[in-house]
């Protein structure tokens, strides 16, 4: 089993290496991780260094992305904000993966009334457009980084629950699972040793695609002032603050938006390539459920 998994991983890596868009996506993601980790040191100026003599200056050698309405360096703010997007993306998808996969595992493995109750709960969460539910949750819990992570985690949980449950339902009918049951293996052991490894592929694919949508959702929440609070920089918030000056200072709207676009595109390219290799039959649930913001 382990040798088969190793070979699947090797096959995935080899296929990804021969997929130019996926390689480009991976390079962008790598750069993003570097920027997210070291953005504060890479930034040419302090993110909150106000300079009234430099207000709304267009891109120049001194300020390659220009300056904002308070004279702050846009490049520095874009670099430092990468960390926020990555953090929110990873933590919220982590929450959705842990909770959703847990629910899907229990529902699919035990079936019956447990399955019914859990999956109807997921249906209820699915009945809300993604961003609307996230906005409602943040609105009642109060805006901030942590609540944005929780809200996005909650709204993406049902996708993971459905993907996991579908995988478990098919795996638990396999001969090797029935054999494990017949020799008296415990449920926990069967799930850990036989079910989880066999549903890992669709979960990996869903995780990479969900990261893209989580980053888009975070940007939308920040745009609405419900993400990380000023003066800390976030790409969505920078777009919101810059929208009033869009006709006289295009760079305020362009660069933070381009950063969101490149990040999401990179995750999508890698996610699509992973899906083609690991789980070609999987429906693009993320795409189907991407509700326009």
């Amino acid at each position: 089993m382990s040798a088969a998994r190793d070979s699947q991983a090797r096959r995935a890596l080899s296929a990804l290496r021969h997929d130019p868009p996926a390689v480009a996506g991976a390079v962008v993601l790598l750069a993003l991780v570097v920027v997210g980790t070291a953005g504060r040191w890479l930034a040419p100026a302090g993110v909150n260094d106000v300079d009234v003599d430099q207000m709304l200056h267009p891109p120049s050698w001194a300020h390659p992305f220009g300056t904002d309405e308070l004279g702050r360096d846009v490049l520095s703010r874009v670099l430092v904000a990468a960390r926020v997007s990555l953090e929110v993306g990873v933590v919220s998808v982590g929450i959705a993966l842990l909770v959703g996969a847990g629910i899907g595992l229990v529902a699919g493995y035990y079936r019956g009334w447990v399955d019914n109750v859990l999956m109807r709960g997921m249906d209820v969460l699915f009945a809300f457009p993604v961003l609307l539910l996230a906005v409602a949750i943040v609105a009642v819990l109060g805006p901030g980084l942590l609540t944005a992570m929780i809200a996005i985690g909650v709204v993406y949980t049902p996708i993971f629950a459905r993907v996991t449950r579908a995988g478990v339902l098919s795996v638990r009918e396999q001969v090797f699972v029935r054999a494990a049951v017949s020799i008296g293996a415990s449920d926990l052991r069967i799930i850990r040793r036989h079910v989880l490894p066999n549903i890992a592929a669709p979960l990996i694919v869903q995780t990479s695609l969900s990261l893209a949508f989580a980053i888009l959702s975070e940007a939308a929440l920040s745009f609405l002032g419900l993400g990380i609070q000023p003066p800390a920089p976030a790409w969505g918030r920078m777009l919101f603050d810059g929208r009033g000056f869009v006709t006289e200072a295009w760079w305020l709207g362009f660069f933070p938006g381009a950063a969101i676009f490149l990040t999401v595109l990179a995750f999508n390219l890698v996610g699509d390539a992973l899906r083609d290799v690991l789980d070609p039959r999987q429906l693009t649930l993320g795409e189907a459920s991407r509700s326009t913001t």
Partner: protein
Amino acid sequence: MSRFVLRRLLQSAVVLLGVTLVVFLLLQLVPGDPVRVALGTRFDPQTYEALRTRAGLDRPLVAQYFSYVGRAVTGDLGVSFRSGQPVTRIVLERLPATLSLALTAVLIAVLVAFPLGVLAAVRSGSALDHAARVFSQFGVSVPDFWMGIMGILLFAGVLGWLPPSGYVPLTEDPAGWLAHVLLPAATVGLVTASILTRFIRSSVLEVLSADYVRTAEAKGLRTRVVVLRHVLRNALIPVITVVAVQLASLLGGVIVVEVLFAWPGIGRLTYDAVQARDYPVLQGAVLLVAALFLLMNLLVDILYARLDPRITAR
């Protein structure tokens, strides 16, 4: 068929009940007293007590929930903490603006995605197919509000062709409405189009490889006839679902785009309610949207079952 419809109706009713529970619990999650939080500096004991009693917050939690559901069934979603107006009226007043934006956006999406998706599949591997795939990838990755900002910059700022924001009701001034709706609808519509293009392309590709298509080609039918008569009919059935799901989520209020373009729809109302901490309005908007979303999905399933009888047999 009728058993299928009945089963879906029952399922939707159960989910709707769950939705009311989630919406009800939202208010309970507010740290502290929601009425006090909403009133803020406008607090005075009389208004405070009146709003608490009107919202039923002085009663036990279970009684509050059943009262909330009971009133919601009759169309009473409470009153706004800010204006004292009935929430149902406030929400329904915003529906036409959202409806006109959503329908225009879906129309743009279908007009773009349908020919692009079909041609990309029929000419699979061609330059057009590659362009369609790049367009799809672009659309699912681009934040629509960024595209909106760039649209404002180009069409309102540089070219001066369209107004940057605002709303004119269709019934008052159709030309003015069209000028105002084009930018926000194109912003939302192009993102939706990219999702649709991908689905239409893969759906048509799947049908193109079916045996009956090969048979039709073997009979010597022209490609155009095969595509129009055999492929599209079958390929578009699953696409209807995706179009309807997209429309349902757009009806749910395109919050960010409505805020960006100052479009007074449900999304903008939700945003304003969040800013004003007007929780009953927030609850009402979320409940209405979720109910609409459920209803649309139910209608789609029934339509889908009529178009493809195999669905009811499952």
